[in-house]
């Protein structure tokens, strides 16, 4: 269709992933699959730091499906002993690990066609995109929602200019903090947060998927 794209050189798993975004389907809030995810990294630098683990859960706007989860631990040469204190992942831990490329294959397969949800999503998305770039792949094609932004659409947000951490929002929404600072644990907390925020939003008025993406405050996060 567009002969100038590097279509041919892209691997099959990417094509499988990308195919899910070719047709524009009308999305419904009740039926759309969301994937709530979180990454644990060696640090906060997009270029130099690496992903250590990814936790992701499939969801709808009202439920999270434990049967539809992904929990990956990634083999990395880059290692930062300082952040290890936070996430607790050792360089040579006992977890079964996969190569970075393999992790991306699994992750793309898992998120194909879904709307991604993360807390302060820009960081996690950038980490993944940098990772894709290292593998000579394009950026993620998924629509992305940020629970931090979604919260600002609610009437209970006290200050629209503030950045709310996952801990702060957990406190506001009365969410028990379990397995904090593991990718799966944070993804779960983000998931509950997402369900609560969505139910809060749809209570106020009839909500469509596109409403979730409309930003009240267009200043970026990074």
């Amino acid at each position, binding site marked *: 269709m567009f002969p100038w794209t590097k279509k041919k050189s892209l691997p099959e798993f990417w094509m499988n992933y990308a195919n899910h975004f070719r047709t524009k389907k009308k999305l419904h809030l009740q039926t759309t699959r969301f994937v709530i995810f979180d990454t644990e990294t060696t640090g906060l630098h997009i270029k130099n730091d690496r992903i250590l683990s990814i*936790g992701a859960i499939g969801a709808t706007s009202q*439920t*999270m499906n*434990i049967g539809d989860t992904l*929990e*990956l631990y990634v083999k990395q040469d880059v290692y930062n002993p300082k952040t290890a204190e936070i996430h607790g992942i050792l360089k040579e831990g006992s977890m079964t690990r996969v190569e970075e490329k393999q992790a991306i294959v699994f992750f793309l397969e898992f998120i194909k066609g879904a709307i991604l949800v993360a807390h302060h999503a820009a960081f996690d998305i950038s980490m993944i995109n940098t990772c894709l770039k290292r593998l000579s792949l394009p950026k993620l094609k998924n629509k992305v929602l940020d629970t931090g932004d979604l919260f600002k659409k609610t009437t209970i947000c006290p200050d629209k200019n503030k950045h709310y951490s996952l801990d702060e929002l957990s406190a506001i929404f009365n969410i028990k903090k379990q397995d904090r600072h593991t990718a799966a644990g944070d993804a779960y907390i983000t998931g*509950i947060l997402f369900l*609560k925020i969505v139910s809060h939003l749809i*209570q106020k008025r009839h909500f469509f998927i596109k409403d979730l993406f409309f930003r009240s405050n267009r200043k970026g996060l990074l």
Partner: protein
Amino acid sequence: MLFEYIDSMKNTIAERVFDFLKDFPPFDCLESKDLEIISRNVTIRYIPKNENVFTTDEEVHDHFYVVKDGAIGIFRNKDKVLVDQCDEGDIFGLRALIRKGHYILNAEAIEESIIYCISSELLENNITINAKANKYLLASFVSNIRNPYAHENIDFLENQVENIQQSKTHFTELHSVSYSKDPVTCLPNVTIKLAAQVMSSKKIGSIIITDAEKPLGIVTDKDLRTKVATGAFSIDDNVDQIMSSPVIAFAKDITVAEAQIAMLQHKISHLCITEDGTANSKLLGILSEHDIVVLQSNTPTVLIKAIERSSTDQELKYIRQGIQELLLGYMQQQIPIPFILKIIAVLNKAVIEKAVLLSLAEMHSPPPVEFTFLALGSQGRNEQLLLTDQDNALIFKDVPEEKYTETKNYFLTLALKINHKLNTIGFEYCPAEMMANNPKWCLSVSQWKQQFHNWITTPDKDQIMLCTIFFDYDFVYGDNSLVKELSESIFESIKNYNIFLNFLGLDALKNPPPLSFFRQFLVESSGEHKDQFDIKSRAIMPLVDAARLLVLSHNFKEHNNTVLRYQKLAQIEPQNKTLYLSCITAFQVLTKFRTLHGLQQNTSGRFIDLKSITKEDKLKLKRCFTAIKEIQQLIQVRFNLSQIL
């Protein structure tokens, strides 16, 4: 490849689900591989406050639900009456799923809630295949349905209650024996003479031959008599020549019944208690027939004889403690409640009778006229297991007016002695003074008749209470004809003042059963929460009151026992048979619950701290509440009480 990896991958969230579910029935009964599968396939749902999980007549979802956080209220659709409250770990939405029907109730979040949805496929493949889990589900199912007395469910009601109860009590095993520790032992190469000398000096009838602390054999008095004194062996031979070997060994948790059977089977009088229960391990002690006889001294026959022989109230006090121990043993051995009730009632009655006899002996003169001493209340109904207050009364034969004061004084003095003795024995004084030493409760037959006539014809709240207690009497000592005369007169009065039964009905309804349990609280129909449960006034008495009223309305006066009353009712009203039978079950379950609780806490068992009871117990109690509610509804309709209420 992805799926292969997913199967083996760590699933932190599923682990958390697993950790949560494993503490709650029925998930606690499941094999961990099944629970793992369930945990990995749960769907999590968030329900904001006041939103519905499902509504009446909605097509059944393919899930049932477990509350993870928050609280879900189950409401009747038509009038929004709260039927049940589910908190963390409670299951709901199961009935419709099993029945494949529509929901008959609304489930609405009382607080914002997170619930786990478990699919019917998981239910079928991983839960109901487990017999214990299935039983729990059926029981919870029965306790939540509208009419648990429908025929198809009656079996659950009667069987499940007992099953679940047995699996959870801490007394699932028979009483284990206490054996003699540090038994006297000797080596096999010791001479018979030396062994006999040791036995004589220690005044024992047996010695164990050991090698490296393991029992090899045993020599008893009988061996010395049959093998040595007869000349078959010399006293200078070694003991191993005459010892009985091998020994019969058991582990230290052997029960009385097992020990008895073993002794009978092997025709022996001593058992060795060893570390692992075989003769190849370290000897811990010895259990003789005598030990067992001592253990069994608290049998009903022994106790009855002791009561007859006793000559002071102090002695009776110790015997009463023996009765308490007997009760404990029976409860531990899971003897059926009706049997326990009967035995304990007979023993209690014998104790009270003896207290009357001892008091009579202390009087300076014999009684001027015939009299009757009656036990009232729970004693009167033969339903007293734990020591509670004493309630009693005294009736004496009519005397000429000029002698009345003198006669009454005699009996008041006698009653004072009896009440005092009963108190010493352990029956505490009744705080409402419903005792024979109260001048109002020590009257001649005519005075009693007059008193009852007044109570019945001008009923008020307090007098109703006095009446109810007097309908449950048991003759303890004296002239039975006086009681008969009185009770006939009472029935005559009731017949003429039928409205009295309505008042009795109102009284029977004054304590509706609680609705359900919620976390550490009892939920009242009004929605109020309480942290303590008065099992006597809220559950047992309503059943007792209902039985009494219904039996009286049929003009039956022979039965003064709740179970017998319901049995009689089931006979004369076959259309309500299932309800009456479920009342009997409920009454027995509640009595057992109260007794176990009382024995554990060493109290009357009346007030139950809700923190101390398990989900299973709550379920069991909840089922009893349903029976109470139904019988109260029947009374309300039958006696037309909704107008008076």
